[in-house]
């Protein structure tokens, strides 16, 4: 076997290599001292350059207050919400809203429990789920609102159910 290219050694030391290729490299390294030395140099270089760049990190970076950052945006957002309220405004009390919020949450949980397409015991895959409610308006009946349920499986595949 020929000696190993620098970029392959780089991937090797970064652990970015499939097992077959890694086995090949291991085998060659056992037999070839120049490649072992080369690997060691690359390793040291990587560590040193990482360290050098890390030393530039700004330890005093001050995070601006979130409110100061979004304050400019807030007036726009508030007026949007106001319009929304006025359009549907039947002026329910907070307690009623809370009740509706809980009702929506329960409905979603029930939906999950009774939805036939989730049968974890039949499959070895773990299905991870997440419900995201967009714009639940507590001032309107739940039946009139669209609820989008987002299902994300472990591969990151996303399914939207309405």
């Amino acid at each position, binding site marked *: 076997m020929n000696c190993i290219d*620098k*970029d*392959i*050694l*780089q*991937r090797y030391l*970064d652990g*970015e290599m499939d097992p077959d290729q890694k086995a090949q490299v291991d085998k060659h390294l056992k037999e070839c001292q120049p490649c072992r030395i080369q690997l060691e*140099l*690359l390793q*040291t*270089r*990587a560590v*040193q*350059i*990482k360290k*050098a*760049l*890390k*030393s*530039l*990190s*700004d330890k005093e*970076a001050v*995070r*601006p207050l*979130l409110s100061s*950052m*979004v304050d400019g*945006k*807030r007036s726009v*957002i*508030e007026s949007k*919400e106001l319009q929304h309220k006025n359009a549907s405004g039947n002026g329910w009390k907070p307690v009623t809203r809370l009740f509706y919020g809980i009702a929506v949450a329960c409905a979603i949980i029930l939906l999950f429990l009774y939805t036939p397409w989730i049968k974890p015991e039949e499959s070895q895959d773990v299905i*991870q789920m*997440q419900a*995201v409610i*967009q*714009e639940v308006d507590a001032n309107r009946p739940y039946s009139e609102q669209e609820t989008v349920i*987002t299902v*994300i499986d472990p591969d*990151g595949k*996303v399914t939207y159910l309405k």
Partner: protein
Amino acid sequence: MSQNSLLLRLSINAFNQLRTFEEIYTDNYARLHNVAVKMVGDRENASDIVQEVFIGLYEKLSGGTVVLYLNTYLYRATLNKCFDCINRQKRYSTLEVVPENSVEDGSLESRERKVVIRRALSKLKPVERAILIMYSEDFSYKEISDATGIRFSSVGKTLARTLDKMENQLKSQRYELY
């Protein structure tokens, strides 16, 4: 709804946990800021860039967009804005003395070393700089590929070449690596 409701708008992280915008902001600000400072070479532009990134995210989330790959989104947005900034100004490459250096703590030796490192970094192409900075922050090749837009299969090669360049730049300024 209170005005805070938007700050509590939910997003999902890689572990499928619900996160508020505020948590995302608190958890990621410093690291993104560091990447930006190293990219563009000065603190002020870096702060503007990171702020713009978070405002962008905030608008996305408040518009109802579900951001699935939050880290990729944040780093990609930050790097893109850094590239824009570098293109706009073309200043960093010619900048010999980086102003923020003067307010830095540490011994003279460590300050000098930092000047040397910055200068070496400034000699790299923006995308090479991005690779190296992400690499130094221990990101995987996949994450580097996602954030910089470089094909995954060529990250190793490009990284090895960039490390060569950086090594030569540092050596030419008598910076001891070994």
